[in-house]
């Protein structure tokens, strides 16, 4: 180790030049980074539900429904119809828009004693303007399930303009253009924008605005804590410098390798700032505490002392992030794991090579160390660490008991953990998008698309009858307001031919009814060109996980039971996707935690050359993770795509504190051969770095409380809590275990 440090000191200028050069290079690459807020685009390519959902998007003119709602006292007024028409017309000619359906252009099949009228519900060139016309339109709309609650709300005060986007369109650009176009019209009605296209575009805006001001704030807060802790500009600047370079390199590497910024990776810079500084904190602390007069030798010795724990700490943290690669359902979470791990390794390399090189190059060894010490003792050592040591030695068993009770409580809390994958819930309650979604849900049965695909000859009576049966089954669910398929149109056409609202029994009749349906705008949205597939389109109103689960289970069962050779039924849409996501959240939570624990145990055990030390190091952090999960259970913070990451991250970061404590203990034990003294010394020295580290990391993450997206807020809070938990565990639970083990003479000097 000393040789390595000597080499670093020798090649210091080479290292500094390389780091500077790479920083400029990667910094330049960052401008190629792109933002992708489309969570659904990161659905896995090997899952049947996700594949079907994507296919439906490609085949039937878009799976993402956008909704524009006009709310007023009464929709059936000429002026309102005029406004609907204005919006409809402008959407029709917007790039990326696949289909538009509104009150002024929706297909209508009317039957009367004299024949069939196939046309539009309203004549868009001659909007009804007489009261009698408007009244009869209102009466007619409310008489048909196709319109009531689907295109006009049941109370007649709101109407919706639905649109779908082309699969290859720039969805965000389209959503923004539509919003801008509608806002320019400056209509008197209250207008809400809802559905995934708008939500995702809003999330992207929020991500951007969050990143722009949160990252600098994190930077300043960490700087302040560092300055306060180290009481030197060097102590503040070096960790920030390495953290900053880490962020630049990581984003640069992401840009080069084609990774995108997602709702998850957007807070990676915050993580890297907090963690990237941590390794340098330990290196600096170790140099500060070395009392050798020859500062160059002090640097070399300090590096030798701190190299292993820093290496271990970063590798275990990286493992925490890599564990997502094996457990996650969404590719964006895997990407996040990979990118952050890369960042951690960069931070490690920088703190081990770049920091000592810079210190020796600029001769900033921290000579003021002697004068700093007495001051600091008053705060950290005297007030916290010294009394802590006393208590630890006095009441080891009681402390262990307290931890035991806490853990039992936490385990109970785990059973109360809720999951949440609904994108709507990512917005704060007062966010316009969330308000819009509430309106969509109240008035139009929500905005979560549901699709049932039927594979078979769509002109076959049995297939169409099965579609009707399925629709009726779906509508039994209180959260399905309306459903639409080609079977409905065939029924209406059959009625218009004077044979009642039903599917004809002969295929020949269906084929001939098709003659009139063929070429209608809506047909490509309902059946494939080859007529070998057709879909039911619907929307699900509830965003409650329980409702979504029970509906999905029911539909899965129904599809399975009713599929046969003539007609295969498949169910997809956002609800079943959410269920998959949900299951995957729980599964990936446990699998990534288990993977992380095993890997950490192995690595710590191997490097420390002691399995029991591996176990000692792991226990406080497992305890912390349990406390964290229990906390989530009791406070109702749900497991979502962001908070699911906390467990493994907490494990990866939190283990660091235990590692520092154990490796400090080893060093001191080697020096004086007395286990008790070694424990005391470790707490007095390493303990300080741990406390600084915990505070700066936690403070960094607490800044996320000001983020505008809820999962990210919760993420920040939970990480901060687990930082305190694991720091506390490393300084109480771990020493207590060592003390007790020592009493039984389990610890001997190697």
């Amino acid at each position, binding site marked *: 180790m000393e040789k390595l440090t000597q080499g670093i000191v020798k090649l210091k200028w080479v290292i500094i030049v390389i780091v500077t050069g790479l920083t400029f290079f990667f910094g330049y690459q960052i401008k190629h980074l792109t933002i992708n807020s489309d969570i659904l685009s990161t659905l896995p390519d090997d899952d049947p539900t996700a594949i079907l959902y994507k296919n439906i998007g490609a085949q039937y003119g878009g799976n993402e429904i956008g909704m524009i709602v006009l709310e007023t006292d009464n929709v059936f007024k000429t002026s309102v119809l005029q406004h609907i028409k204005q919006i409809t*017309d402008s959407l*029709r*000619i917007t790039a990326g828009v696949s289909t538009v359906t509104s009150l002024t252009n929706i297909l209508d099949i009317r039957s009367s004693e*004299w*024949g*069939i*009228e*196939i*046309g*539009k519900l309203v*004549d*868009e*060139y*001659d909007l009804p303007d007489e009261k009698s016309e408007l009244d009869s339109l209102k009466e007619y709309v409310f008489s048909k399930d196709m319109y009531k609650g689907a295109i006009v709300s049941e109370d007649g005060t709101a109407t919706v303009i639905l649109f779908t986007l082309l699969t290859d369109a720039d969805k965000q650009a389209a959503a923004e253009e539509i919003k801008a176009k509608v806002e320019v019209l400056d209509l008197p009605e209250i207008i809400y924008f809802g559905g995934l296209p708008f939500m995702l575009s809003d999330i992207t805006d929020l991500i951007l605005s969050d990143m722009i001001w949160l990252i600098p704030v994190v930077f300043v807060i960490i700087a302040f804590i560092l300055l306060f802790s180290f009481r030197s500009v060097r102590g503040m600047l070096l960790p920030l410098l390495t953290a900053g370079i880490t962020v630049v390199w990581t984003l640069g590497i992401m840009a080069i390798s084609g990774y995108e910024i997602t709702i998850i990776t957007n807070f990676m810079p915050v993580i890297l700032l907090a963690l990237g500084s941590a390794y340098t904190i330990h290196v600096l602390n170790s140099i500060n505490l070395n009392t050798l007069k020859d500062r160059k030798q002090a640097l070399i010795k300090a590096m030798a002392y701190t190299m292993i724990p820093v290496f271990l700490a970063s590798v275990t943290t990286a493992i925490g992030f890599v564990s997502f690669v094996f457990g996650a359902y969404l590719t964006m979470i895997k990407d996040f794991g990979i990118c952050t791990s890369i960042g951690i390794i960069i931070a490690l390399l920088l703190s081990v090579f770049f920091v000592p090189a810079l210190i020796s190059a600029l001769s900033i060894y921290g000579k003021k160390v002697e004068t700093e010490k007495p001051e600091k003792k008053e705060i950290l050592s005297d007030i916290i660490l010294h009394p802590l040591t006393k208590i630890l030695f006095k009441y080891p068993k009681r402390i262990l008991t307290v931890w035991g009770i806490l853990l039992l409580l936490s385990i109970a809390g785990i059973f109360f953990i809720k999951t949440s994958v609904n994108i709507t819930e990512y917005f704060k309650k007062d966010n316009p998008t969330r308000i819009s979604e509430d309106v969509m849900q109240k008035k139009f049965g929500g905005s979560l698309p549901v699709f049932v695909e039927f594979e078979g000859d769509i002109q076959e009576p049995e297939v169409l009858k099965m579609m009707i049966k399925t629709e009726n089954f779906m509508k039994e669910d209180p959260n399905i307001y309306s459903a639409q398929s080609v079977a409905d149109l065939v029924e209406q056409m059959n009625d*218009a*031919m*004077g*044979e009642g609202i039903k599917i004809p029994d*002969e295929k*020949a*009749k269906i*084929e*001939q*009814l098709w*003659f*009139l349906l*063929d*070429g*209608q*705008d809506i047909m490509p949205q309902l059946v494939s*060109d080859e007529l070998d597939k057709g879909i039911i389109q619907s929307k699900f109103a509830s965003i409650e996980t329980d409702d979504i689960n029970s509906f999905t289970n029911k539909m899965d069962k129904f599809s399975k039971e009713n599929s046969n050779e003539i007609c295969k039924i498949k169910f997809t849409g956002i609800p079943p996707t959410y269920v998959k996501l949900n299951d995957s959240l729980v599964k990936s939570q446990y699998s990534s935690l288990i993977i992380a624990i095993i890997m950490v145990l192995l690595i710590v055990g191997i490097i420390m050359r002691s399995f029991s030390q591996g176990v000692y190091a792991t226990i406080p952090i497992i305890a912390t993770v349990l406390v964290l999960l229990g906390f989530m259970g009791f406070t109702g913070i749900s497991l979502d795509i962001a908070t699911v990451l906390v467990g493994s991250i907490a494990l990866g970061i939190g283990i660091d504190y235990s590692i520092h404590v154990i490796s400090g203990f080893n060093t001191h034990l080697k020096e004086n051969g007395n286990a008790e003294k070694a424990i005391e010394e470790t707490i007095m020295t390493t303990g300080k770095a741990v406390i600084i580290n915990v505070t700066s990391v936690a403070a960094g993450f607490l800044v996320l409380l000001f983020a505008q997206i809820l999962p990210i807020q919760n993420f920040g809070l939970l990480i901060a809590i687990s930082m305190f938990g694991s720091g506390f565990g490393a300084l109480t639970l771990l020493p207590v275990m060592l003390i007790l083990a020592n009493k039984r003479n389990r610890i001997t000097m190697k």
Partner: protein
Amino acid sequence: MKSKIQSAVFTALIFAGSILYANSQDANTILKNMDDVMYAPKDMTGKHTITLIDKNGKQEIRKANIKQKGTDKRIIRFTSPASQAGISVLSLPDDVMYLYLPAFGKERRISASVKNQNFAGTDFSYDDMESIPYSDKYTPKLIKSEGNVFVLELTPKGRSDYSRIIVNVNKTNYYPELMEYYDRGNKKIKVAEYTFKKSGNYWNAAEIEMTNLKKNHKTKMQMSDVKYDTGLTDDEFTVRKLKL
């Protein structure tokens, strides 16, 4: 001298004015001539082959017999594919249409109140299928005259889904060679290519290929066995005749 200049200016003004007049007159005349060529026959019978070509190049062929009298009476009877054989559509003046579906053995009056919808899966809208003279529906403007064609810009007089149609009219024979349809966002959405052939005294649209640029879908309508002025009577265009 002065009077000479005056008269020269006067003449020039008259000349310029007449050119402008001639231009607007020309556009109207050209369109009128085109209508005359397209709607000249008193009546017509023939066979339609309608080929639908989707974006993957997959073709679907339909055949129909057609009879037309004047510009507002028409009966189309499908003969193939088998599933559609016998389906007949009768169009009468004032947008009255009757449909006969043999599988039901019944006819129904249908009202396609909105004419921007496509006719039976083709790329032709009900609007495009109408035989109303263009000069009744559109105001022409001569944009340019190049090579063998006049290029007219037609702006709809009444309601239409099109903001304008650009027509290339053959200079010698006044039949349309090309029509480009623009939507209200002024985006080209459809293109129709015409192939006219002389048949007896009349020019006949032997083939019309309509391409929907948005959907990347094509419809080819070919006309064969055309006979003109065979003396069809109004009796041929009655509901009773649909079932035959």
